[in-house]
């Protein structure tokens, strides 16, 4: 888990999906690159690398963020959760199962980001309607255009989750 001799590398301790990692990384390393290239957690995807597409969405302390716009070294001591941390093929998170059931993807590249946003949305003050879900999901782009099925998948899970009233 240690990078090759980088003269500017700094020690960084991260907690990802409940596991602690001690690394030496270049300070420029984004959380996304750190997850993918150093921890080999490749479920989080790099789309635009500028916070515009949402493919890199992960949770930090339970809140969704664009991991491409975070420097990994700034998130020591925080609880980072990736798609690998919310479910496994033999034990899917209800949102993952709903995406499968609703056929909420085509190529699948944006899907982990969509699901990380959708899981976070369950705890956010999002209204009941499809239009509310669309607004809350506007930070996750799907080039295949699976949007109607993504909304359907999220709404199917929400029917089993008490919607939160706006604060």
């Amino acid at each position, binding site marked *: 888990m240690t990078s090759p001799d980088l003269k*500017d590398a*700094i020690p960084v301790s991260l907690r990802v999906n409940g596991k602690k990692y001690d690394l030496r990384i*270049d*300070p*420029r390393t*984004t959380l996304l690159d750190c997850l993918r290239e150093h921890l080999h957690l490749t479920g989080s995807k790099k789309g635009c*690398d*500028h*916070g515009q597409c*949402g493919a890199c*969405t992960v949770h930090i302390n339970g*809140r*969704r*963020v*664009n991991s491409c*716009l*975070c*420097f990994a*070294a*700034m998130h020591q001591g925080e609880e980072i959760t990736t798609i690998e941390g919310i479910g496994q093929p033999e034990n899917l998170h209800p949102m993952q199962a709903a995406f499968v059931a609703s056929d909420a993807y085509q190529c699948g590249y944006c899907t982990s980001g969509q699901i990380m*946003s959708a899981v*976070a*949305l369950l705890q*956010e*003050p999002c209204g009941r309607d499809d239009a509310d879900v*669309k*607004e*809350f999901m*506007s*930070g996750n782009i799907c080039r295949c255009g699976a949007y109607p099925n993504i909304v359907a998948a999220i709404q199917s899970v929400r029917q089993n989750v008490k919607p939160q009233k*706006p*604060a």
Partner: protein
Amino acid sequence: MKTFQLTRAADNAQAIASAAKATTAQQGAEVRFIGGGTTLIDLMKLNVERPQTLIDINRLPLDKIEALPDGGLTIGAVVRNSDLAYHPLVRKNYTVLSEAILSGATVQLRNMATTAGNLLQRTRCMYFRETSMPCNKREPGSGCAAITGVNRSLAILGTSEHCIATNPSDMNVALAALEATIHVRGTKGERSIPIADFHVLPGNTPQRETVLEPGDLITHVTLPPSAPGSRSLYLKLRDRASYEFALASAAVVVTVANGTITRARIALGGVGTKPWRSTEAEGELTNQPATQAVFQKAADAALRGAKPQSQNGFKVELAKRCLVHALKLATQAA
């Protein structure tokens, strides 16, 4: 991306002392504070921002939203946009601020972006973001490619022959209408800056966007108590329904008594080189009946000084209609 040294400030004083070593507090500074990073990291990837030192201020005790004894509100510099927008006191007393923040960006970005960062958000002018193009804001003296180029989304108010870049923030527009005060600590102590004086017009120095000096740390923002009986809202017009910058927006705070507007605070977004407070519009509204004709006079006054570019002439009428409609909504019987 150029490499940099990442440090974490132990306290405000250390952050200020470190940042004071920079020659400027503006874009291009060698030392930058980093909060949410949503603007800064994006621009570092584009080599538009090339700091040698980043000072992480996220763990400074600047993360509180608290009611003030006078009925106002204090908002810490690193309060996240999401937390601000959904705070019960903001929703209750400063609707315009909540609506403005929630109309911008995405949930992910609002979870990261901070109050102070949003105040310092950089323009989305594509020539500023593209280092192969001339841009007086990024490279003083290199020229403005936008004036003769693609300028549909750019400013029509407060421009100069050197820069027509729009201030992209929604939050700032609401803060302008709410007459917020920006509190800063620097090497010479503390000072308070009315938001109207915080951002500066581009003039001959578009690289300078605020009155901040090297070492200045925004600590918090205060809002005066909401005006009794006032209603406020934010109306944003854009090319798509979500996750898009304003072509024109209006933040209005109005008080109506017996059909007469007794107090109005108006700011426009998407059209100005800074958050555009319009005292001209306020003057046309105050002590006048809340009618379409009066709203139209106010809108005409707000846009009187507009200087459209080759592709954004439509913004003059769009901004007027935006303000008229916002006033109509804000003055309708509840």
